């Protein structure tokens, strides 16, 4: 397969992702895939690709790519400065590129991840039905790792339909602050009454650790009432773990499958795509929601975007 683009500069952490490999947590295999699946799917749909076509996920600072042949790309997610041959590029729109063109994805101070989709999708090594890169175990994507300069990207030549206009109503509104909803986790009652109250009313700040494994929440310390020894048990993207140091950790797409810390909350499925756009120092408010209400919200949102994420938000 011929080279479509060469990586001139790799950016901070640029990986090939799709919509992940659900259903293998019993083997210890994380979901992986785009940390903001909605933005990746929209960039693909803008090109007429299947929503899950392998694309590039760029983190905080994007790559520079030089195209070896002509084709089509589309961008989605965090509004990073993006140019082709120094001319600014619009997001969520199919863009023609020509041989020798240079795409540069810069930085942003809003959001954390931008997606570059390619008409036909990217070639990648597939594992358990997904091309997504899982770096800790080095599988999927481009040799299981983030891109480095000199890497060559080729197209998978997936069947594509017609490009689609992504109206503003569909585009995720990414801001500096995040309002997410969560239900109480299995060990919520291990928090002191005071901590239970504060968890859902605190303005949390994203700590320095904010990656595909998880996001550290700082600003307040949670106190555990009783430190019960806990046998290793399941965790998921969106689970908020509370280690003994009292600093909650919000798990994301690459999170391990089982853990031993109290699970104090679970972010509702409808709000999980927002986790991919949180960056150090973002403010996060976590609103308390009942299980029934959360199910209703996620079901409705899944129906609204059924033509973008055919599998829905329950993943």
């Amino acid at each position, binding site marked *: 397969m011929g080279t479509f683009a060469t990586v001139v500069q790799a950016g901070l952490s640029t990986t090939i992702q799709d919509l992940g490999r*659900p*259903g293998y*947590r*019993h*083997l*210890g*295999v*994380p979901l992986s895939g785009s940390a903001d699946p909605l933005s990746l799917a929209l960039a693909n749909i803008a090109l007429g690709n299947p929503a899950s076509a392998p694309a590039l996920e760029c983190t905080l600072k994007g790559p520079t790519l030089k195209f070896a042949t002509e084709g089509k790309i589309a961008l989605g997610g965090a509004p990073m400065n993006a140019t082709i041959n120094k001319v600014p590029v619009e997001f969520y729109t199919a863009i023609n590129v020509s041989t020798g063109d240079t795409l540069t994805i810069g930085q942003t101070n809003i959001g954390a991840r931008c997606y570059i989709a390619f008409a036909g999708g990217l070639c990648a090594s597939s*594992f*358990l039905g997904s091309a997504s890169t*899982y770096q*800790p*175990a*080095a*599988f999927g994507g481009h040799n299981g790792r983030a891109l480095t300069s000199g890497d060559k990207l080729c197209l998978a030549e997936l069947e594509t339909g017609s490009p689609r206009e992504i109206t503003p109503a569909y585009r995720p509104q990414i801001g500096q602050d995040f309002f997410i909803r969560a*239900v109480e*986790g*299995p060990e919520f009652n291990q928090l002191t009454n005071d901590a239970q109250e504060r968890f859902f009313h605190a303005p949390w700040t994203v700590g320095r650790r904010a990656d595909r494994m998880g996001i550290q929440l700082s600003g307040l310390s949670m106190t555990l009432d009783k430190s019960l020894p806990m*046998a*290793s*048990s*399941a965790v*998921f993207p*969106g*689970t908020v773990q509370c280690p003994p140091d009292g600093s909650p950790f919000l798990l994301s797409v690459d999170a*391990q*499958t*089982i*853990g031993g810390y109290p*699970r104090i909350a*679970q972010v*509702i*499925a409808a709000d999980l795509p927002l986790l991919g756009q949180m960056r150090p120092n973002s403010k996060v408010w976590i609103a308390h929601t009942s*299980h*029934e209400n*959360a*199910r209703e919200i*996620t*079901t409705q949102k*899944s129906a609204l975007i059924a033509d973008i994420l055919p599998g*829905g938000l*329950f*993943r």
Partner: protein
Amino acid sequence: MNNHDYHIAPFGENGWIATYLGNQNIVDKALFANSVADNIRSVNGIIDAVAGIDSVTIKFNPSILSAHDAHKRLEQLSEGAGMTAPMPNPKIEIPVCYGGEYGPDLEPLCNELDLTQEAIIERHTNAPYRVLAVGFAPGFAYLGPTDQILHCNRHKTPRPQVPAGSVGIAGSMTGVYPLQSPGGWQIIGRTPATLFDPDADQPFIFTPGTEVHFKPVDAKTFSTLEGAR
């Protein structure tokens, strides 16, 4: 499991967790949890069914399987009803080269456990283990229980990279890393056996219930076996 003492609670808006509270030994509990997870995983609408040491968590898609029905299935299986007969558990023997560059924590552990290297190796290879759970990292097998005399703590700070094939001990468990990954267990040896084949139907060698024996091999045999892969 004779005693069906369990508790089911919600976990997220599309999940349930069953925790097994009985005082059975850890092996019986973990194997029961695994068979519940195996039985429910194929139900239409179940996204994930993950067994922990004393629990099963399911995630379901409410547009296919209602919360009520998902709860009911988990309840029935936790009562021991409707379980298919478990497959006979496979037995595997894992060759391990202990100590030295393959097991950097073996020597320091001698002090902590007040045992010689030979005694640690003997205790570790003496008993068959069962795979009680798989998780933490892809294909990582929690094997147990270990001889009480080997019980030890994890490293306070995990190593950023543990080589594939490493054999570790921590708490009352021993574990094998099928892939290079970060890890906090005390690494006492390494196996040259192939533990991960990305193209196989079952990419990881360890499945819950598998009976595992460790067999000590020297560095020369390690190299020969490694070369033969």
